[in-house]
Structure formats: C-alpha cells, structure tokens
C-alpha cells in the first residue's frame, strides 16, 4: 500500500515537472508576443512596410514673384489640422514612422505661394511642396524662427504673423523599412540557393556513401562543433574572406548581400547537414535494398528513392534555415554592414530586418517602439513562410507518398 502511494507521489512529481517546464516555455513565448505587440502595434501600418527609410531634406525659399494668396479652403479639415488662409497651407502634428513628433503638411492650396518654391542649394531647382512632407523650420526676416517642436498650431500663428519668409526647411517622409524587408527576402533566397545544395549533398555523402571509419566520425564531430560556434565569429570570417572575394569579383565596394548570404550559408550548413542526415537515417533500408535488387545503381537508388522520401525532412531543414537567416544579426553586422538602404542591389550595402532593429536600438535615444514593430513584421514573415512550407510539405506527402498529415 505504502509502496503504491510512494509511486503515486513520484509519478505526480515527475508529471508536475513536465507540466511546469512546458508551461514555462509557453508563458515565455506568450510574454515575448505580448511585449512586441504591446510596444509595437502603434507604429504598425502599411506605410512602414512600403516607405523608404531615407528622407530627403530641403532648404527652399520663395520666388521673387510669389505673392500671398489669402485663399480660403473649401475643404473641411479634421480637428488638429491648422490652416493658414494667408499662406494657403494646412499643417498638423503627427507621429512619423520612427515614432517621432513631426509637423506634417496636410494640404497646400494650388494658389499658395508655397506651392512653387525653389531649392536654395545648387541650381535653384523648383520644388513642389507636397502634402506628405514634414516641416522642420520656417525662418522669417524680422521674426523668430518657427521650429517643428513648437507644434503645428504655433507654426501657423507664426506664418499668419508674417508676410514674407526667408527660408523653409522640410524633408520627405522617411523611416520605412521597405529596403530592409527586400534585403531580408534576398538574403533568404540567396542563402538557401547556396546552402541547400551543399548541405544536402554533404548529408547524402555522410549518410549514404561515407565509409564507417574514424575520418567520417571526425568529420561529423567537426560539423557538430560548427553548430556551436558563435555567429559573430562567422561574421568575422565573412568580413575576412567573403567580403574581399565579392569586392574583387563584383562591383561591390564593401559588405554586400552576396557576402552576407555566403556567410549565412556557412552558418546554416551544419544545421542543414544535421537535419537532412537525420531525415535520411530514418528512411527504411528496405527501400534501398528493393531498389538495388531491381538492378538500380547506388546513385540511382540515392537520387530516385532515398532523396525524394526525405523531402519532408529537407523542408524542415529549410524551415530552420529560414528562421536562422531572419534572426541572424551579429554575423551580418560584419558581413553586410549596418547601413540601412532603400535601393537594394545584390552588390550594394543594405541590411536585414534584424540588423535594422539593432540600428534602431543603437540610435540615441533607443527606439524601442519601432524595434517592436519590426519584430512584429519579422514574426509575421516567419509565420507566413512556415505556413507556406507546411502546405507545400503536406501537399507533397499527399501527392507523392499518399500520406496525409
């Protein structure tokens, strides 16, 4: 009786530990999600994904012939939008994509003198003041300068108090992460193109061809060791080897997407080799024997029977690889660099979303909100790619193998 009781307590204890462990991991995951959504949802909008990061700044002044328009607007503005009929411009306080307070131009009357202004820089090119630009400051001849931090209402008051203005400084909308998203997708595609064939090939060699000897064991333990090397060391290697190679062979001038993808491919190789080898191991020997007994060569057996059967495992490897590519930042800081670019090219500098977060957090002050928003986007990309690969995998299994999962 007491023996039974002791066993029961023991079982309860062990079960309790497993429940506890699984709930801890679940709670951690939930906490991360709550944090990034709680912090980041405010800045989450489609403009962030679609907009450029860089903003162009202009300092402009009026043409000599420009006259005040004193034009009333027939548009009914929302609350918080201030309109100067003297200058024909409507301004509002807004939060930009980076989460900073800015004064955004809501509307410029076509008859407004501000509608046609000229760049004070080289060439005096005419510029159009568009309704999405942010005004930084407006300077007058005999009056204090209106700065953006005074707010939209004050800026309109300043404008109304003056008939002339000396110069106006404004910038285009910026802070979007379009370039970093495209870079991340480029990196995923390019890295997989490099790493999958090499990794799968190596796994096939190790599992199907390699003799069972000390050298093979040594090779395997080497690969396992590589899994544990910190990625920043791979980044240094990328900087020392792949960046010079790519700058020699292409028109790149420094870290670029190709050198980044090569570095990531090296990081991923051990993961891909291990996962693929595991999936090759579980393929029943019956298949190999049946194929060989039918007069197929070893190579035919490997590529016609063994490899197709391991596709689900290879897809799992791909999934892990994609997660790693999206999440990697330390190695990319060296292998690509941290400059955020909108014009993405394979040989140009630009950076991934994870490094984008890193750049935002090293800003002064650290931009936690935007980082959390980018984190949400990263999570969404990972989820979408996961679902996509699961779909492909289950369709393949059903079509080819007749197994439904």
């Amino acid at each position, binding site marked *: 009786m007491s023996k039974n009781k002791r066993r029961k307590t023991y079982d309860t204890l062990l079960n309790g530990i497993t429940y506890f462990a699984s709930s801890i991991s679940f709670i951690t995951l939930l906490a991360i999600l709550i944090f990034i959504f709680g912090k980041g949802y405010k800045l989450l909008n489609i403009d962030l994904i679609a907009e450029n990061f860089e903003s162009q700044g202009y300092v402009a002044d009026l043409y000599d012939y420009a006259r005040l328009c004193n034009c009333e607007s027939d548009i009914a503005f929302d609350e918080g939008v201030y309109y100067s009929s003297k200058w024909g411009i409507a301004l509002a306080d807004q939060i930009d994509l980076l989460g900073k307070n800015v004064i955004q131009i809501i509307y410029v009357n076509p008859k407004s003198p501000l509608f046609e202004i000229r760049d004070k820089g080289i060439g005096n090119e005419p510029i159009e003041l568009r309704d999405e630009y942010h005004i930084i400051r407006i300077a007058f001849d005999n009056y204090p300068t209106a700065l953006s931090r005074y707010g939209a209402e004050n800026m309109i008051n300043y404008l109304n108090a003056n008939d002339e203005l000396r110069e106006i400084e404004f910038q285009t909308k910026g802070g979007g992460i379009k370039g970093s998203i495209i870079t991340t997708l480029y990196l995923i595609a390019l890295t997989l193109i490099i790493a999958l064939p090499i990794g799968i090939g190596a796994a096939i060699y190790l599992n199907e061809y390699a003799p069972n000897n000390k050298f093979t064991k040594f090779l395997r333990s080497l690969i396992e060791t590589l899994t544990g090397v910190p990625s920043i060391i791979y980044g240094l290697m990328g900087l020392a080897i792949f960046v010079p190679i790519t700058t020699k062979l292409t028109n790149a001038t420094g870290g670029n997407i190709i050198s980044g993808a090569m570095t990531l491919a090296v990081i991923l190789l051990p993961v891909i080799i291990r996962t693929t080898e595991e999936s090759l191991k579980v393929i029943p020997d019956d298949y190999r024997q049946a194929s060989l*007994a039918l*007069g197929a060569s070893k190579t035919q057996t490997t590529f*016609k029977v063994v490899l197709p059967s391991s596709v689900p495992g290879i897809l799992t490897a791909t999934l892990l690889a994609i997660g790693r590519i999206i999440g990697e930042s330390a190695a990319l800081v060296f292998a690509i660099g941290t400059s955020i670019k909108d014009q993405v090219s394979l040989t140009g500098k630009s950076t991934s979303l994870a490094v984008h977060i890193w750049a935002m957090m090293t800003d002064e002050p650290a931009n936690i909100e935007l980082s959390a928003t980018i984190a949400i986007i990263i999570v969404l990309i990972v989820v979408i790619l996961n679902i996509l690969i699961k779909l492909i995998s289950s369709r393949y299994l059903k079509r080819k193998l007749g197994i439904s999962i």
Partner: protein
Amino acid sequence: MTLTNEKAFHINQLNLYYGNKLALDNIDIDIYQKQVTALIGPSGCGKSTFLRTLNRMNDLISNCHVNGKILYNENDIYSSDSDVIDLRRRIGMVFQKPNPFPMSIYDNVAYGLRCQGVKDKAVLQKAVKKALVDAALYEEVKDRLKESALSLSGGQQQRLCIARAIAMSPDVILMDEPTSALDPIATAKIEDLINDLKKDYTIIIVTHNMQQALRVSDYTAFFLLGEIVEYGLTSELFSHPKNPKTEDYITGRFG
C-alpha cells in the same frame, strides 16, 4: 510434374563469413530452371543468407565475404568481371516485408525499367500492365495506378513487389519469406501466384512454413547451422526424409 535437369545455379563449395564467423559452410547445391525451390530451416540457419548470395545482396554488408563458386548460367557471379547490376536485373527479389517505394503504383512497377534507361511511355505502359496482370494485381488496381502504393493492403503491396520484380523480365525470382507478414487469405493468393509464375521463372523461396514449402515447391533444401542437411524433391523430402534431423524438423520436434 515434369522435372527438367537444366540448372539455373550450380553452387560449389560456397563458404560465407560475417567477419570471422562462418555463416555458410561448404554449400554444394544445384538449382533447377523453372522449378520452385524452397529453403527451409530454423531461424539463423543461413537460408536467407544463402538466398542473398544469389543476387549478391550480401555485398551490402561490409564485413561479409564469400569464397567458393556460384555459377549462374555457367558464369561465376562472384568473379571480378561479373556485372552486379546486370545480375540483379536478371535475378529479381521479393522481401519479407512488403517494401513498395513511396511513389505511385505505376511508378513502382516502372521503376526498374526506368533505371535501365527505358523512357518510351508506350513501352513502359505495356510492361507495367503485363507485370501487374502476371502478378494478379491488375484488376484490383487498374483504376488507381496513379495513387500511392502505400495505400494498398499488405497482400496487395507484396504482389506489387512481385510485379515490380517481374517487370524487369528476370530469369529468377528470389523470395525471402514473402508471406510471413501477411494474413492467410493474402498468403493463399501469393502461393497461387507462385504456382502460376513457375512456368516462366525459376523461383527460390525461403519459408518458415513447412506446409507452404510442401504446397508450392518442387525441390526443398533443409538448412541447419549454415549447412545443407538434405536437398531433394519436395515430395520425397517430406515423405521419406533421409536424415533424422530433417525428420525431426519437419515433424515439428524442434525449430
């Protein structure tokens, strides 16, 4: 029953070692064409090992080596100039557990031919159909050739494996306990099939089931501890065993 004396295999002083362990000891046996030869004996007696030497499947085991002669159509299959891939094309094999490939029924049967480089669709279709008809499976699967072979029942899978082997039009079919994983009805179907197939093929079957050996085979070899204790016509071996060990085994006193 017509018995021919044309030999498919002539085996002379065959020894097989796993490392240092002798697994087949001085085997001398002639196997006749277009007959069913059953190999019986208790587990671990070497009958499956022997079967696998005939299409050199033991080559896959790293520490296994063979000496002695196996003449197949007068050619030594273990000589250095023998082509193992061609040998396996002419000597098909059916395994203990049905092992269709995870692909469609059609692709399973066409697999061997495709590996030989046959690409012509009409040729493949004809060969697949003939193999399935010969393996008595065609009527059951003719509407679902594109479906996965894994959706078939165990008995159907095993007949598919036989179809896959005979699609290569081999001379010999080796069967390693082909019914041990099947129920009695599926077993009966396979046995009927073996009776049909023996007019075209030399069949060598390993079985644990004495009744099965009696039902399907023309010749029987009794293996014990890596040696052939007795070999002869099935009818004689079962009714008048010459060796007392054979008698003990077939009457169920051990094994």
